[in-house]
Each structure stands twice: as C-alpha cells, then as structure tokens.
C-alpha cells in the first residue's frame, strides 16, 4: 500500500476534524492512504452520513400498514393496493445549482430518478421545489434571474429527454437565497410488489458489475462540497459540478428494468454522491459482505486517473449491480442490446471489507461498516431558536384593498408559474390527470383503478418565526392539498434545508423543525419513508431561512379530477372550516406582510390539528361523492387570493362574496389561517350537512357569476375588480419580473 504524508493540513482539506481523523486511525489501526482518506471524507461528509441530524431523524414516525420500505434505502416504498407499489423520495442539489445552474439542476433530476429506478420502479412523476433570490433586487436581481432561467432549463432538459413528466412543484423568492438557491427534486415511480430490488451485495463470489457512463474526473468531492458553506472561492469549484446526459439515463432505465426481469440480478444501486465509493461500501454494508473491485476494469473517460480520483468521481449515469454467479451473460446481453458499457469489475467477498485494487496493487482496504455505519454522529449543541424577527410589525392600514390584492397576485411567490412549467413536459407517459398549477398533482396508475396525488410545499417565513409550528403547518397544508382533490394522504418525504449545524441557533431550528415534522406526520398518519438533509446553506456567514420542504403522497380512485376553478355561474360558494380567528401577530408571516409591508414579524398562524383533520375528511368525502363542482384550499395570500385564483379559469367565472365579520378587512382578506377550503356547488345543503356531521364550520358566503370578483363585508365593498384585470397581472407577472424587473 502506498504511504502518503497525511498531514493535519491534508486532513483539514478533506473537511475531516482532528477527532474524526483519530476515529479513522482507530478503526483502521493504522494511518490511511490518501485514497482511503478521500473515501472516508466523502462517506463521513454531512451529505452522505447525516452526522448532525441522524439522532434527531430517529424521532420521525416511519411505519404504517402501507409502508413496505422506510428510510435507509434508496427510496421509500408504499403499498397502493392491487399488488402495486410506489417508490418516492426527494433530494437536493442546492450547492451545484448555484455554481452551475443548468447542470446543477439537471443532474439533481438525474440523481433522484436513479434512486427510483434502481429499486425497480419506473419513474412516472417529478416535482420541483425551487427557491431563488428576488428577481427585482437592484444588486443581485440579474444573477438571480440568470440562476432561475438556468435551473428551469436544466430541469426541463433532463426530465423532458428522459421522458418523465414534471407535474408540479413550487417556486419562491427570498432575499436569503440570493447566494444560496434551493433546488429540491421529488420523484415517484411505480412497480409491482414482486419487482422490488435492493442495494445489497449478497452471495459470496457473485460478480460486481459496473454499468453506464464512463468514469471521468468530474464531480470529485461533490459530496463534501455540498457539506460546506459558500465562500468567494466556491466559484472556482465549477469543475466539481457534474454534467448530465439524460439520454444515457433513459437507456440505463430501460436496460436496468429489462435486466431485472431476467431474475439474474441480486442487488443494484446507483452511483450517486461519492460514486463508486458509496455504492460499493453501502451495498456491502447492507448485506454484511465485502466488496473487492479492480479499478483497471472500470470504464474510464480519460487515461491516467488515480484510484483517489476514480473512487471520488461523481460522473453521472452509472450503476453498480451484483449478479448471480454463472448468469452474468444474461445481464450483460441486455445492456449490450441498449448499447451500454457493462463490465465485471469485482466480486462479493466474505470479509466485510471494501478492497480497491488497481493492477494488483491494493489502494484501499476498509471495513464497509466503518464507512457506512460507523460514521460519526453528533449531538450538536443547540440553543432555543434564535428569534431575529420582531414580535410586532408595522401598522396594518391599507388604503386600497383591491390594489393590495393586485400587488399580491403579481408578486413572485403568488403569481402564475406558467412561464416555468410550460418548459416542462408535464404529460409524457399520459398519466397526468392534474398537472402544474393544480391544487395537487395527480397521476393515474395504468392497469389499476387507483391514482396517486402528490403535493410539495415549504415555507421559510413561517419556519423563521417558529420552526416547529412552521413545519407542522407545511405538513397540514400538503395533506389539505391532497384531501382537496379527494386523496387520502399516506406517506411523506422531506428535504431539510438549513444553515450551518455547528451554530447552536441553526441546530435549534433543525431540531425544532424535525420535532414538528414528527408530531404532524404522526398526527396526520403520514409516516416519513425517506428524505434528504442539506446543511451549510450559507453564503459569507448569512444562512438561508430555515426551509424544510415536505412532499406528501396520497391515493384516490382514478376519475376526472375536481377543478380548482369555478366552472360556471350560479353556483353557491361555501367556505368550509370557517373564517378563522387570527390574532394580529399572525399577519407577520403572511404574504401580505411580505409584499405590502416588506417585513417579517410576529408568529405563524395557529393550527388545531384535530380540527384540520376533520376539515380534510369533510372535503375528501365531498369530492369523492362528487358533491362539489370546484375545490381550492385557502393558503398563502389568504381568502382574497384564493377566491381570485378560483376565478382564473378559461370560463371567466368570478364570484360575489358577502361576509359578516368583525375582523379588520386586511386580516379578513389576507390572513393565512389553515383548515379552510373554498368549494362551489349547486347543492349547498349537502356540503353543510357533511360539515355538521364532522363538527366542522361551513357557511355559504357567495355565488359565482361572470367576469367579476367582488368581496363585501357587511355594507363595505372590500374588493371589486374585473377578473381580466386581476388575471392579466397574475398571468404575466413572472415574465415581467424576468424581462422588465425595474418596472415592478
């Protein structure tokens, strides 16, 4: 074994602490080689090891009768009946997307798709949660716009070519993302129960096969880059970002699914973060076996690569699989049909070691468990969440409520995102019953009577004010979105985006948020089956708003979905759940505070989870009984924004609302209290009766009519506008922000 000078500087350059290095010395009983140090550095990085969060993630509920596979595998698996299952997960590609937006986002899509089909599932839906700095910021706006355009075209490039529909997501603009955008990608796949594959290297003597793209020098140390704060030097890390090839990935998908059908594959795992390293040691560790590979056999893009570079390369579109000895040819011939490189590079051994050789020389020899399971775990100190926002805010005194509504509808967060999602193929595979812009995305599962609905949501503002409460509200919102289309929420995935966990106030946000997630997921019976943690989201010491992103899936019978928009005039509009009882402080986290006041203060809205659950049951029952003609939850922007959104259909049907409330008009129109859903129906008695049975408030508040949106409270007209005036602002705001940002 080559001995290297492992100086403290070399250790620190690998982002390993002195204590972590001591642990390596004691696990190995000797000094590591440079290759071994590199291997430890990626496997023990925050990105791969979850070392700061693992002890807290244990608090999450992970089981239900429907969960076939919980956290720890490439993706969680849920039973949806008829012998069919879905696999789904979310992953972040935040850091690469800042350094190189197009490729960073594209390879983010590629990575999560591999996580899904490596389990044997065919990907049938993708959603994205993306966050950028403000497009109209005088200093950073131009860069923020460039990052947005790059990320969107990167997602489009990869997903469209691969042939998976991008069916929904969210896009939010916050000052704190100008140096640190968030790109979280969710993917969902479908398969039969007996088609599930795991990343396990079982069967001593079985061949280890490398499939897909050749290994190059790209992406070396991507995982450790994703575990560090951004500095001015980060821009020089551009070569660390990988380049994606969606065509190669499409071939890999088809070839892997076909090869799995031969029955000759024992285990399979994609080469994601830390490439060859993570796939070999994790597959060995899960099976309790060793894996020995010969790097000379690995297909290489360029000559002269060192073992260090090959083990740390993050070249995309590569898979590692273990085949049954003697049946290699069956597997190899499938890959040959698809024109892919497939090479035997090693063997499963009985000694539990990851052994890396090149031309007969051993370059690394590490127990698999040391890498995958013995990674350090930290109970990092945490304070009470540090409150930076004031308790009280500017006086709420609107002069013109209709003008406020227009400002909200043309704000980055609330405006139509059509400019983004029309760049995505949201229909390929012809399963999309409800796509982008809908209450929740719905894809049918062919050959069954079941469809899957999915919602993806985050709210950095709520979480900045109270990470625990904010996270619970996000879970409630996702479940409400699903229930509003008639789906029963069944399981959760999550992407925790936070700053530097070594700072106690950030660690406090993480702990509070995870505990809020645990509490809400338990209550709403949506166990967490997997997810991702992205920390060190800071630039020059400024952290992002704490942003847990939650993705929840639900099931419903396949049918034409209930629309969000009012379909025709003359229907009664009801508000299920009631107007809410907000306190003034609850206005501080709203979009009203953000857009009209340019401020963040107070508290997130209150949430009564038991009541919320009853509201959700009510709407689910009504939608399934076809008792409503449209349904939309009241979310960000409050009641007025929700009513406007209901009026933006092709049919040009608006609403005349009459309220009778003591609340100040700004709060009445724009507070964001949860547990509220708007429906339109010709038979309001059904809705009222169903609400009464479930002990939920409901009241008829208006009627649909053509062309106008009017909201009255008592004798006061609060809002009055032609739909066309509101809609044109809402529809074109994003393009306006992108192309004429100064004229907001």
């Amino acid at each position, binding site marked *: 074994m080559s001995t290297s000078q492992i100086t403290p500087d070399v250790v620190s350059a690998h982002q390993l602490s002195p204590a972590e290095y001591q642990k390596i010395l004691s696990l190995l009983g000797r000094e590591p080689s440079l290759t071994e140090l590199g291997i430890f550095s990626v496997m023990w990085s925050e990105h791969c090891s979850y070392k700061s969060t693992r002890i807290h993630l244990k608090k999450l509920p992970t089981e239900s009768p429907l969960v076939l596979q919980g956290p720890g595998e490439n993706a969680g698996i849920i039973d949806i009946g008829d012998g069919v299952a879905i696999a789904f997960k979310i992953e972040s590609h935040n850091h690469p997307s800042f350094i190189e937006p197009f490729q960073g986002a594209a390879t983010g899509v590629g990575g999560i798709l591999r996580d899904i089909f490596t389990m044997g599932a065919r990907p049938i839906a993708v959603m994205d949660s993306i966050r950028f700095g403000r497009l109209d910021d005088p200093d950073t706006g131009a860069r923020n716009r460039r990052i947005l355009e790059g990320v969107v*075209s990167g997602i*489009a490039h990869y997903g*469209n*070519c*691969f*042939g998976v529909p991008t069916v929904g997501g969210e896009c939010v603009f916050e000052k704190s993302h100008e140096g640190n955008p968030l790109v979280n990608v969710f993917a969902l796949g479908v398969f039969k129960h007996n088609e599930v594959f795991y990343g396990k290297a079982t069967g001593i003597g079985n061949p280890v096969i490398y499939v897909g793209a050749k290994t190059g020098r790209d992406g070396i140390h991507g995982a450790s880059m994703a575990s560090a704060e951004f500095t001015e030097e980060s821009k020089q890390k551009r070569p660390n970002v990988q380049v994606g*090839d*969606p*065509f*190669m990935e*499409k*071939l890999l998908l*088809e070839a892997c699914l076909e090869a799995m059908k031969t029955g000759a594959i024992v285990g399979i795992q994609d080469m994601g973060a830390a490439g060859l390293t993570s796939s070999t040691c994790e597959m060995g560790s899960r099976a309790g076996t060793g894996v020995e590979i010969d790097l000379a056999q690995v297909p290489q893009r360029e000559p002269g690569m060192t073992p260090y570079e090959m083990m740390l390369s993050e070249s995309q579109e590569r898979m590692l699989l273990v085949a049954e000895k003697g049946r290699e040819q069956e597997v190899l011939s499938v890959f040959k049909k*698809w*024109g892919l490189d497939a090479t035997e590079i090693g063997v499963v051994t009985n000694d539990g070691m990851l052994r890396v050789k090149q031309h007969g020389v051993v370059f690394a020899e590490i127990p698999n468990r040391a890498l995958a399971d013995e990674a350090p775990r930290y109970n990092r100190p945490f304070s009470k969440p540090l409150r930076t926002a004031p308790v009280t805010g500017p006086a709420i005194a609107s002069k013109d409520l209709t003008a406020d509504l227009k400002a909200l509808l043309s704000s980055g967060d609330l405006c139509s995102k059509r400019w983004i*999602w*029309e*760049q*995505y*193929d*949201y*229909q*390929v*595979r*012809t399963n*999309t*019953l409800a796509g982008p812009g809908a209450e929740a995305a719905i894809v*049918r599962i*062919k050959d069954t009577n079941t469809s899957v609905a999915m919602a993806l949501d985050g709210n950095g503002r709520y979480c900045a004010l109270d990470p625990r409460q904010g996270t619970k509200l996000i879970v409630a919102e996702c479940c409400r979105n699903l229930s509003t289309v008639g789906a029963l929420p069944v399981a959760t995935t999550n992407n925790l985006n936070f700053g530097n966990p070594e700072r106690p106030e950030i660690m406090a946000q993480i702990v509070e948020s995870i505990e809020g997630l645990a509490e809400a997921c338990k209550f709403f019976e949506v166990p967490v089956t997997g997810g991702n943690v992205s920390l060190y989201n800071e630039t020059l010491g400024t952290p992002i708003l704490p942003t847990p992103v939650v993705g929840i899936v639900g099931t419903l019978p*396949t*049918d*034409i979905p209930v629309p969000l928009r009012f379909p025709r005039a003359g229907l009664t509009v009801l508000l299920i759940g009631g107007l809410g009882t907000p306190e003034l402080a609850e206005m501080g986290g709203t979009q009203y505070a953000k857009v009209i006041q340019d401020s963040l203060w107070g508290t997130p809205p209150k949430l009564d989870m038991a009541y919320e659950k009853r509201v959700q049951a009510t709407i689910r029952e009504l939608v399934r009984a076809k008792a409503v003609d449209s349904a939309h939850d009241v979310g960000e922007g409050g009641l007025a924004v929700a009513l406007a959104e209901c009026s933006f259909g092709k049919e040009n049907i608006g609403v005349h609302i009459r309220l009778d409330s003591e609340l100040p008009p700004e709060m009445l129109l724009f507070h964001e209290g949860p547990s509220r859903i708007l429906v339109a129906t010709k038979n309001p008695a059904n809705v009222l009766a169903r609400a009464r049975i479930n002990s939920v408030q409901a009241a008829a508040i208006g009627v649909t009519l053509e062309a106008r949106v009017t909201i009255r409270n008592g004798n006061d007209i609060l809002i009055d506008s032609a739909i066309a005036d509101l809609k044109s602002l809402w529809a074109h705001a994003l393009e306006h922000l992108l192309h004429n940002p100064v004229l907001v």
Partner: protein
Amino acid sequence: MKIGIVVFPGSNCDHDAWYAVSQNMHQQAEFIWHETASLTNVDAIILPGGFAYGDYLRCGAIAKFSPVMSAVKRFAADGGLALGVCNGFQVLTECGLLPGALVRNANLKFVCRPVELEVATCNSPFTHEAKMGQRLTIPVAHGEGCYIADEKTLDELQAEDRITLKYLDNPNGSLRNIAGILNEQRNVMGMMPHPERVADPLMGGTDGLTILQSLVHAATASQMSQMGTERSVPCGVGLGQRNPSPFARA
C-alpha cells in the same frame, strides 16, 4: 390490422402511442425495435415522440441512419401509411420523407401546452374523419418544433393541399402556422402536436382520436382491399400504390 410503433433508443412517447392504439382504441399495436430491417407484419407505422439517440447533434439526424428507417422508407414507397409525431416528424424530415425542417422554437424554449389546431385538409388518410376547418385541441411538447422550408416548398405544400393541420395560436414560430404536412403521395404525415395524449377522456380530451381513428380506419381499409375483400369504410377509402389512393393530389 396492426400498427407498428417504432422504438429508437431515446423514444419516450412510444408507450403512450401503444396505449392509445391498444387500450383506448382496442386495436392491435406492437413495438418495432430500431434495428429491425424490414416491416412485414404491420399495416401502418407510428414514429413516436422522444429524443431518438439523444438528439444531441440535431433532432433526427442520427435516427435517419438506423436500419428501421430504411425499412420505413421502403414501406412508405410501397404505399404504407406512416405517421410521425413530434420527434417522429423531425425524423421524417431528416430522412427526406417529408420536405422542410424543424428548428428551435422561436423563443428558444421548450413548450408544453394544449394548442388549438385547424384541420386544413381532410383529403388524407390521417384526417379524413375530420371536417374541413374543424378545430382540434391537441398538446404540443417540444423544443424544436418550428417548421421551416423555402418559399417554393411552402407554396407547393399549399398548392398541393398537403398542409393538414395549422396552428391557430402558433406556439413555436412555424412558417405559415404549419403543424402537420403530407408527402407528395399523401401516405406519410408528420405533425408536432401529440394526438396520443388526448385519446382518453381522463386526459382532458379526445381530439387526438380524430387523427388516430382516421389512420386506423384507413389502414384497415388498405388491409381489406389487399386481401381482395370489398368493404365500405368512412370516405370509402382503399390505399397505397398497392391500391390506387383515394387521397390523390387534386
């Protein structure tokens, strides 16, 4: 009657076309691998959407060299019906079965949206079940769907009644709003919109069936007349050089 659906590495609407034909329309359909050198067993061909061979060089530029495209050319020369959708249209122009070319959308961005089309001729095996001027709403999903050709070719297409579908709200900058065209013999059509995506009420519409049913019925008629049986079909069509085409040039 059987419809063959060509599968290139990188095709990704192949399964959608198969589903529309076999599950929504209850007709036989089978996949044809790109290495297939002859088409013996099928009555019509669909070249589906996707990114054949990755389309990194130019859409369809590699596909035109595939063995299956030589077979498709012979099939078409023999009067066989071939419908190219999206990437399939691009492949048909690359290999010279249709004139003109498809280039980057005018705004340089991929676009996925339902578009309104006008049926510009019913005199074709792909549109004979439509009414002249009928409006169809069918989605597009492409980055390179802007149809271009020189003026002479465009004039010819128009004069020979070979423009089948026109955009009413042009999403990509196509010249003369062209969404679909025929070859001279009228047995090959390329179109950028995806009829297979609106062949099921669940998918929000069934306008695509107008195109697909025209194709299926024309192919059935062609098969019947080859077998020497007389059969009345919509428009009373039989097909191909194998049989004199009722969709002859005006």
